[in-house]
């Protein structure tokens, strides 16, 4: 009797699984997806994301989305320490949508649902290269960021700086003018917040060279990339600005106790001249006080052969868990479609549009004549090389290598190491990593 019972049970289970598997249709690709279809779909979604500062706004999007898809519940799991936390969680089934953390590109298919062919999606959406592997895209960017400097126009005007600085020398001169003519801190480093330091790495590609291939290709194969180009361009020039600003006393006095939340109000009311942060920071600084009109955004002060460039790239991209159920995956795709095309999220965050028909927000008015450079993807077969070089060299360029930038400030302030020596060390570490991984030097 018992045997029969267990047999029946096993049979039921197998049948159940089989019928469940049969229900798994192929998911539509992101461009085929029509928002509003399958409105009766039922699923619950856990969305792991880093924007702890705007929970109301995000939940507002959920409410809006549920007007079309009433049976879909979406819960945001907003995490402060996102980059690390997400990397630990990406392997699990404990999320449905997440902002894709720094995984190697050849591992993408193990964690995320493919959204479609990259070249097809690229016709309609920007920055499709961000999470492309083997011609397939796995992540839809939330918004696009340009790399520049957020500044207080009133402070610059008061200091007598009427033209936006275009070269490192002009920039340092402007900072000196702010120090001499106003009470404001010329350049606020946000040293203590750590991740704000790593942000400097984002400028060494497009902004500093004008070359879309620099970040993901040239850098990997270049011998001693941190050497002085001699013309105020390249990575050397970017980090030199920071070193010089510290050395000349143009930053906050006690950099070890800076306060990230506090700095927003400070730049808003004119206590800070400028901060080196991506364009995503603009809206936060603007909304942090009563002087939002004073906040402006300018490009990074490096001119390559008479022309200025601004690195542009995707912010965190949305990826759907490959371990989720079919309903969850489909509902997630609809929600991402909504965020990308209907919500106006990118625009309201002051970001570059992802949907190519979208508008550019007003903050880019100072970017007239400046070319946006989106980092080109790594060459085929080298998608994971940058991450590996970063790990091997422990420089973690553009990947959370905050400590090395902090050390620039410490050495500049304490005067215990020349800038050229720091760059020589980085070159050494990079070269050693290139040798360890048998990277061809071009």
């Amino acid at each position, binding site marked *: 009797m018992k045997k029969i019972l267990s047999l029946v049970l096993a049979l039921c289970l197998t049948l159940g699984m089989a019928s469940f598997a049969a229900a798994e249709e192929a998911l539509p690709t992101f461009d085929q997806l029509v928002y509003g279809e399958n409105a009766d779909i039922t699923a619950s979604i856990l969305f792991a994301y880093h924007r702890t500062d705007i929970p109301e706004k995000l939940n507002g999007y959920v409410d809006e989305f549920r007007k079309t898809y009433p049976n879909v519940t979406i819960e945001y799991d907003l995490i402060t320490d996102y980059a*690390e936390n997400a*990397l*630990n969680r*990406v*392997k699990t089934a404990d999320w449905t949508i997440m902002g894709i953390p*720094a*995984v*190697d590109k050849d*591992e993408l298919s193990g964690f995320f649902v493919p959204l479609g062919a990259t070249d097809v999606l690229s016709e309609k959406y920007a920055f499709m290269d961000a999470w492309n592997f083997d011609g397939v895209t796995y992540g839809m960017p939330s918004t696009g960021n340009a790399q520049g400097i957020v500044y207080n126009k009133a402070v610059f005007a008061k200091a007598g700086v009427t033209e936006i600085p275009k070269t490192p020398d002009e920039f340092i001169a402007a900072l000196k003018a702010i120090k001499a003519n106003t009470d404001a801190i010329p350049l606020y480093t946000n*040293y*203590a*917040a*750590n991740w704000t330091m790593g942000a400097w790495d984002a400028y060494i590609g497009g902004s500093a060279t004008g070359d879309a291939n620099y970040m993901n290709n040239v850098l990997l194969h270049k011998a001693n990339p941190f050497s002085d180009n001699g013309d105020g361009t390249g990575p050397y020039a970017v980090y030199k600005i920071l070193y010089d600003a510290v050395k000349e006393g143009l930053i906050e*006095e*006690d*950099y*070890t*106790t800076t306060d990230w939340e506090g700095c927003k109000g400070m730049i808003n009311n004119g206590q800070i001249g400028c901060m080196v942060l991506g364009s995503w920071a603009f809206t936060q600084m603007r909304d942090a006080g009563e002087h939002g009109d004073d906040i402006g955004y300018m490009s990074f002060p490096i001119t390559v052969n008479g022309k200025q460039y601004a690195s542009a790239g995707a912010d965190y991209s949305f990826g759907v868990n490959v371990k989720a159920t079919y309903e969850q995956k489909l509902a997630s795709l609809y929600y991402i479609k909504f965020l990308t095309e209907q919500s106006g999220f990118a625009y309201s965050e002051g970001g570059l549009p992802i949907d190519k028909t979208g508008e550019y927000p007003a903050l880019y008015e100072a970017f007239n004549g400046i070319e946006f450079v989106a980092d080109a993807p790594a060459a085929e077969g080298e998608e994971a090389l940058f*991450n590996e070089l*970063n*790990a091997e060299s*422990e420089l*973690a360029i553009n*990947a*959370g*290598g*905050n*400590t090395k930038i*902090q050390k620039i400030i*410490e050495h500049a*302030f*304490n005067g215990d190491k020349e800038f050229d020596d720091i760059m020589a060390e980085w070159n050494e570490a990079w070269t050693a990593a290139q040798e360890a991984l048998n990277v061809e030097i071009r």
Partner: protein
Amino acid sequence: MTNAAAPDLRQRRKKINGQKVLLIVTFSVIPLFLLALFTYVPFFRMIRFSFYNMSYTKNKGFVGLDNYVKIFTREEYVSAMLLSLYYMAGAAIQLSLALFFATLLTSGLKGSGLFKGIMFFPFLVNGIAIGYMFKFFFTRGFVLDTVLQSLGISLESLPYWLRDQSVNNWSLVFTSVWKYCGQNMVLFVGAIASIDPTLYEAATIDGANKWQQFKAIILPGIKTVFMLNLILSITGSLSAFEPAYVVGSMGANGTATFFIKIHQMAHVHNKVGMACAMAMVLMILILVFTVAQRLFFRYVMKDSENTFNGKANRAKALW
């Protein structure tokens, strides 16, 4: 009657014994399972990982002792380990302070309960909260500077507590002392309270003063607890993390302890194998220190124990 009852009783006892065993097993199965799952399995896997070059998501192959060699050949890791010396110095101060207050509070002071509570309180506060508190405490012109200024010290003559590399590690050690001193003290108070009060009487009659009593009665009497506190603080110093992570901005400005280096290795550089090897080194270091302390106390301090017992016996004999 008796013959019939005996096997029955034996059987019942057997049954009860059986139930006992069953009870013990069922009650311990879950905790033992959890212990194995969350402590021993990860631990043995960590040992294995430490011989591999691997990230969280990818295993890049066996590398033998490479990871361990790197730890000892790179100057930055050795200097990170040396940062523990600051915390050990802090631990010495902390233990002396705790012992001092414990002796004071057990000497029949009025309101000692209240003082005990006040001094123990920091230990109950969450470490991260303490971190943020002390960040403001050390900020230029904030709490500490204001207090010192009111004592007549000019702001110009004060260092930047976290920025100046000559003092910043001491600032961090201070937060750690502030937090753990109360805990040590409470343990000491408990130990001192368990000393037989007749010993004091005997010593007083013998004409011993308070310092002599402390040295000859209290100190030997709390030896076990003192050892425990010492081991806890030394291992704590070796694996110092919270103050440097929160107050020192994740180990910036030369405050990165070995533990912070492990964290960076695993979570910034994604070198899990290397981080596991570093964790192993830290564990071995802690084991070595613990064993060394035990040996030290067993052989070096043995004499003092004999003199203590001798003295006490003599005191009792005299009495």
